[in-house]
């Protein structure tokens, strides 16, 4: 499912947006729409838009539910950084929440610490599948940062899968 992305030199930054949002569930839809709006000038396909929105939604939801333990406190903040390097989107979602001991376990499909909340454990699997590149850094007690990249406007092959 995960495409092989050519390793390439990082291009020059052509656009950048930084947003600080309160870690409440209302902002999950705001975050994914903001990123969707950010890449609109690149003429993404519906497929690509949907991929990016889903991946962002997963990362922000993780920050709200796990990073900040779903307490819904508006003083908890999520930092959303979007960078364009030509036609490559780089999006970073970071929180200063509880962090994770074992990132590899968290990234295992179906693994969840909150089955009580009906979480499916598919969040990282979706981020990995829908974006070209995923990098997760986490420190217990300090927070978590998820960085994802995706080349936009060149993915007709995704639609023909499955």
């Amino acid at each position, binding site marked *: 499912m995960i495409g092989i992305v050519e390793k390439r030199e990082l291009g020059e930054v052509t656009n950048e947006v930084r947003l600080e949002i309160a870690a409440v569930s209302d902002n*999950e839809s705001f975050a994914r729409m903001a990123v969707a709006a950010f890449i609109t000038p690149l003429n993404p396909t519906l497929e690509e838009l949907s991929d990016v929105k889903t991946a962002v*939604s997963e990362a922000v939801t993780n920050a709200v539910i796990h990073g900040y333990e779903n307490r819904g406190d508006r003083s908890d903040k999520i930092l959303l950084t979007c960078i364009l390097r030509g036609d490559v989107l780089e999006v970073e979602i970071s929180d200063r929440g509880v962090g994770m001991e074992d990132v590899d376990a968290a990234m295992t499909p179906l693994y969840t610490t909150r089955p009580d909340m009906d979480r*499916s454990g598919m969040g990282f699997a*979706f981020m990995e599948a829908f974006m070209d590149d995923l990098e997760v850094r986490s420190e217990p007690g300090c927070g978590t940062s998820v960085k994802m990249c995706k080349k936009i406007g060149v993915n007709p092959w995704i639609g023909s899968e*499955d």
Partner: protein
Amino acid sequence: MEDFKVINDYLMIRLPEEIDHHGSAAISSKADRYILSGRVENVVFDFERTTFMDSSGIGIILGRYRKVACFGGKVYAVNADSRIRRILLMSGLERIVEIMDTKKKCGEVEQ
């Protein structure tokens, strides 16, 4: 926002336009009230209006499946567009949920 309807022993859930964590708890708990009342045996998720879903939707379906499956009930997904369908398939839900194309087919099951 989402519509709930009982037809025979089927609970039909018309899902909202966007399914994410924000609204998922409300859908799940409302569905569970119907399931636990004993009036319904099977659950049909209708994606006709839905244009966005993340893994929260998978959680809603899995959670309801666990509740109805122990009484021999079934779970169906209808009217899912290609993007929603991809998310359902990627999660392996086709093994426990019958994914159907149209309402018409869904009606055939009901009779």
